[in-house]
């Protein structure tokens, strides 16, 4: 039976541009092996509209995948394998 991936959540709402991408990248680089193995998902909560374009583009270049959902006025970006 496959295990559910561990979820790390980063709340970047209210922070300056480009905190969302910079802090997401820091986390991704630190946990890349676990992300690539599918053991981990990184969730970024952001109100930065620009980050909904830059995070997916960046992680896709790293062979990862991003899903975005709008929730109550902010965006939830899930980075995973």
């Amino acid at each position: 039976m496959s295990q559910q991936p561990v979820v790390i959540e980063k709340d970047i709402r209210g922070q300056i541009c480009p905190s969302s991408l910079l802090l997401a990248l820091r986390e991704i680089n630190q946990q890349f092996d676990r992300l690539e193995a599918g053991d981990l998902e990184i969730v970024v909560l952001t109100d930065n509209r620009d980050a909904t374009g830059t995070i997916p583009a960046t992680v896709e270049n790293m062979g990862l995948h991003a899903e975005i959902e709008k929730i109550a006025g902010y965006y939830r970006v899930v980075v995973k394998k």
Partner: protein
Amino acid sequence: METEFVTVFGGLFCLGLTAGFFMHRSDFCLAGALRDLFLFRSARLIRPLVFAVAVSALLFELARLTGLLPYYPFPGFGVPAGATLVGGFVFGVGMVLTGACVVGVLYKLGGGSLLAGVGLLGLIVGSGLYAEIHPYWQPLAKASRWHEQAVTLPQLTGTSPTGWALGLAGAGFLLCAIWWQQGKWSQGYTPEGFVPLWLTAGIIAILSLLALLLSGVPMGITTSYAKFAAGVEQLFVPEHVAATEFFTARAFQLAPPPIGRVLTGGGGPQFDVIALIQYPLIVGIPLGAFFSALRLGEFKPHWKVPVGQALMVFCGGIIMAFGSRLAPGCNVWHLLGGLPLLTMQSLLFLAGLLPGAWVGSRLLQKFLV
């Protein structure tokens, strides 16, 4: 108030509303354009900037040829000086640390960013602090002049501005076409209500032309931040304001076309021609962004922000204000107003802005990560 004054004020307010709305929808951040180039090696936000400059070069020249442009070059643009290079550099560092430029803080504040408000506060404080060193900087700035008469490259070379404008616009459009062919304008995922960056850039260029026709100068707002600082100081130390040269001088002269007579203005707290053409933009841009954010259900100010980040943004605002006064002028004034006309001051500002943004990006990375 005379109808002509209402026309100028009301017209510019509407331009500000429109600019704020579209800048929020596209998150068209001019600070991000240079920052991301150095931080992420991404030219994504440089492309709309190039498009806006190319469209503006074409529109400004068309307006000049048809006699619609009230001034050539615009008042407020001086002869080239090393001071502008220094100002551009300082501005670039401050802009990146603030997370937005002088206009960016306005649309981001309207969109609900409280840190943008902190940056705005830094801009006002910095503008007030600059007034104290202005008498010492002014002689240095004068001594650093490279030419005594020519303001634009066409003036320096004694050639027609038309060829230069067509060359600049042509080069810009060619670059944009190459990017389009390479698929680099596509955005991938876009947030709700997103307006393509090229479209917002084109709208901003048209708004710049309309601002020129209404006021006689391109969009700019930084002197008003000094006026706000002077207004606050006036409440507590009026005698100091009266003795501060930067606040008492009314050196700026402008005849907004609908008014048709010369008005003066300066950095002091009084309502003058600078207030007439800048205050409506300062109120309109955040209101336009607020309306956009409200319509999207995204106006949700978030109070829990790292204190260190707020301090960095505040200091960034102070540094950016210093840069805009040392130059003088901000990135919007120089890149969207002066560059399309190839004013040498704006080219020097850009030459300083690039290394400044690089230094700012390195510092930002150190502070944030």
